[in-house]
C-alpha cells in the first residue's frame, strides 16, 4: 500500500557549516568543511564538527532554567522555524502540533561540567548553583524548552536510537498525522559536542585524528559533530519537498558493528521505496550514512549497490559537518530538501581516491542535475537502521 505523502514546509539548521539554514546551505554549496578544533580538551588528537563563531548566545532570560549547549544550539535552529510554526499553530491549533525530535545524549554536557566541579571533593556544594539535571540534561529538557519558546502543546517526545534517531522521527510524526491525532509536527534532531561522545567514539578506535574521508582509500575514521536540525511537516501546505517513505529495520547482528553484508540497511531502503511505490531505478541521489569508518562504509556500499546499482550518485555530507549523531538524520534531511529544490548534488569530499571495495558512483565534483527522488540513510548502534525517501516538490 502506498503511503500518503506529506509536505515539508520549513526548516531550521545550526551546524558546523553555519548558525542558520541559509549559512549552512551556502557553505555546503561552497564546498566548505566545518571540521575544526574540539572546543574542550581531550587526551587524543581529533577534529570535530563544531559550531562556528565562538560562544553561543544564551537562551532567553525567562527560560534560563533550560540553558545548556543543546538548548542554545536548538534555539539557533529555531529562529528560522519561529514564524512558520507560529503560522502552523494558528492554522492547526497548538494542541495539534507535535514536537518529535531525536537526540543521542540530550544535554549531558551540563552534567559533565557539574560532575567535574563535584568530583575532586565529592562535595555537593561545589556543584554550580544553576545546574539542574531535569531541565538541562534529561532527554526531554530541550523539548520542554522549545515548547515554552513556541507554544506547541501537542505530543512531544524524544526518539533516541543513537544515530538513526532523527530519521525515525519522520515516521513517528507521519503515523500520528495518518491517524488524525495531529496536523503538523516539528521533527529533526539535536546533539551538542560533549566529552561522552567524543571520548566514547575514540574508545572504540573509530575517531579520525584529521578530517574524515567517507568511502575514501585508507580512510581514518569519523569525526563527531554537533547540530540542531528541525523540519516542519504538515498535513497540507506549500512543500519545499515531500516526505514519501520511511523504512525502519534492525540488523540483529551486533551492538556496535553493522551487519557486514548490509542486509538491514538494504531492507530499510527497500521498505522506504515500497511505501512510496517508487522503483530503485527512480532514485536520483543517495545521502549516505557514510560515517567514514571502515565497517560502515563497506556495509552501506554493499546495500546501496545491491538495491540501487552502482550508477546513482552517492554522497556522505558527514565529510562537511562531521557525524552529528542524533541530529544527523535531520541535518541530512535539510540537505536533501536543498538538493531537491536546487537540482544539485554536492561533491563526495574525501572519497577520492576511493576504497577499491566500494563500487559506488561518488561524485568528485558538485553536479547540476534534475532530481526527483532522494534517499537519506541513517544507521545506528544496536543495528538500528532508518532510510527516508524524499521527493522534489515540483
Amino acid at each position, binding site marked *: *500500500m502506498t503511503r500518503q505523502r506529506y509536505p515539508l514546509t520549513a526548516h531550521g539548521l545550526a551546524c558546523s557549516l553555519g548558525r542558520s539554514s541559509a549559512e549552512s546551505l551556502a557553505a555546503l554549496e561552497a564546498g566548505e568543511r566545518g571540521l575544526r578544533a574540539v572546543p574542550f580538551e581531550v*587526551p587524543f588528537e581529533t577534529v570535530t564538527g563544531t559550531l562556528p563563531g565562538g560562544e553561543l548566545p544564551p537562551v532567553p532570560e525567562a527560560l534560563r532554567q533550560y540553558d545548556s549547549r543543546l538548548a542554545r544550539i536548538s534555539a539557533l535552529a529555531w529562529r528560522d522555524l519561529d514564524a512558520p510554526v507560529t503560522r502552523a499553530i494558528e492554522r492547526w491549533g497548538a*494542541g495539534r502540533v507535535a514536537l518529535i525530535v531525536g537526540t543521542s545524549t*540530550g544535554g*549531558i554536557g551540563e*552534567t*559533565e561540567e557539574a*560532575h567535574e566541579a*563535584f*568530583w575532586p571533593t565529592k562535595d555537593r556544594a561545589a556543584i554550580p548553583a544553576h545546574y*539542574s*539535571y*531535569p*531541565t538541562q540534561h*534529561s*532527554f*526531554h*529538557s530541550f523539548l*520542554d524548552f522549545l*515548547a*515554552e519558546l513556541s507554544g506547541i*502543546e501537542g*505530543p*512531544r*517526545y*524524544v*526518539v*533516541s*536510537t543513537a544515530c538513526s534517531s532523527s530519521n*525515525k522521527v519522520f515516521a*513517528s510524526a507521519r*503515523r*500520528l498525522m495518518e*491517524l*488524525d*491525532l495531529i496536523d503538523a509536527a516539528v521533527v529533526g534532531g539535536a546533539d551538542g559536542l560533549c*566529552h*561522552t561522545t567524543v*571520548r*566514547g*567514539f*575514540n*574508545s*572504540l*578506535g573509530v575517531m579520525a585524528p584529521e578530517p574524515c574521508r567517507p568511502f575514501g582509500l585508507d580512510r581514518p575514521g569519523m569525526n563527531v559533530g554537533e547540530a540542531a536540525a528541525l523540519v516542519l511537516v504538515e498535513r497540507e501546505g506549500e512543500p519545499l519537498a515531500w516526505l514519501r517513505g520511511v523504512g*525502519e*529495520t*534492525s*540488523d*540483529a*547482528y*551486533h*551492538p556496535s558493528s553493522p551487519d557486514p553484508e548490509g*542486509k*538491514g540497511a538494504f531492507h530499510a531502503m527497500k521498505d522506504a521505496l515500497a511505501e512510496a511505490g517508487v522503483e530503485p531505478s527512480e532514485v536520483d541521489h543517495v545521502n549516505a550514512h557514510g560515517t567514514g569508518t571502515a565497517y560502515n562504509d563497506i556495509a552501506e556500499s554493499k546495500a546501496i549497490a545491491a538495491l540501487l546499482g552502482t550508477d546513482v550518485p552517492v554522497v556522505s555530507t558527514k565529510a562537511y559537518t562531521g557525524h552529528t549523531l542524533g541530529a544527523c538524520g535531520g541535518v541530512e534531511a535539510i540537505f536533501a530538501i536543498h538538493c531537491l529544490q536546487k537540482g544539485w548534488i554536492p561533491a563526495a569530499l574525501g572519497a577520492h581516491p576511493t576504497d577499491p571495495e566500494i563500487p559506488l558512483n561518488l561524485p568528485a565534483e558538485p553536479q547540476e542535475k534534475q532530481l526527483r527522488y532522494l534517499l537519506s540513510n541513517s544507521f*545506528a*548502534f*544496536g*543495528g*538500528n537502521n532508518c532510510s527516508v525517501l524524499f521527493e522534489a516538490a515540483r
Partner: protein
Amino acid sequence: MSPRDVYVHGRALWAPGFADLATFRAGVADDAVTKPPASLVGGRMKRGTSPMCRAAIEVVTQAAADAGFDPATCATVFGSYHGEIEIAFHQLEMMRDGEGIISPARFKNSVHNTAAGLFTIGATNRGFTTAIAGGPHTFALSLLEAWALIASGEHDQAVVATTEEPLPSFLDELSDHRLLGIAIALSADPDGALAKVAVPMPCTEPAPHPAVREAFADHVAAPGLALIDAVDEGWRGPLGLTPPGGGPASLGVTVPGRGWRTELSAP
C-alpha cells in the same frame, strides 16, 4: 485513515524481589531475585550492560510470551525517562581517573536504545524497534508510539516497555526510585484479548487510575503498572496515565503542557 482497534494481550513486570508479575501479585519478595536474567540474550553480549537494560529485555520477552507473540517478529518500543544513567555516570568517573579514557564496552552500552538493540539481536528480530523518552510522560508517549504502530496498520503486534533504574548518587537527591520494568503486549487481534485500549490522549484534568503499590507510586513506570492493574481488574472507562504538570518522578519540576489519559473497554 480509520485507526484499527488496539487490544492488550499480555503484560509483564520485573523488579528486585519479583521475577515476574505473578510473584509481584503474590506480594512476597524473594531476596534471591536480584538480577534480571534477560536470558534471550547471550552472556557475552550482555557483558557491561546495566540492570535497567537487562530488566527491559526481560519484561519485553515476558510480555511477548504472555501474549503468545513471536519475539522474532513483533515490533518493540522501549521507553525510559533517564535511560542508561548509571553507565553515563560511570563514564564520567572514568574520564576523571587515569588518562581519561572510557571503556569501549561501557560506551557501546550507553545509548538509550541498548536494550532495543540487544533484544533484536537476541530474538533475531530484523524488524522495527525504537527507544523513547518523554520525561514523566514517558510511559504514555511510549504507549502512544506503540498504539500508533498497530492502529496505522504498520504492525500487527507490538510490545511497549518502560524501565527505570535508581539514579546514581550524584542525582539521588532528586528521586529514590528503585529498579522497575513493566511491559504491555498490544495487538490488532480481538481474539483472546484482555481489554481494548483507546488512543492515549492529552488531558487538562487528571483522570482516575488504580492505586499502584506504594513502593512504586512515584515511579516513572507507575502509569504502566496502573494500566496492568486496571487490565487485570477489568477496569472500564477513562484511565489516567500522567496528570498535567508532570506526575510520577517529575523530579520536582513542573513540566509545561498537558497530562495523558487513555480508556479501557471490553475487547
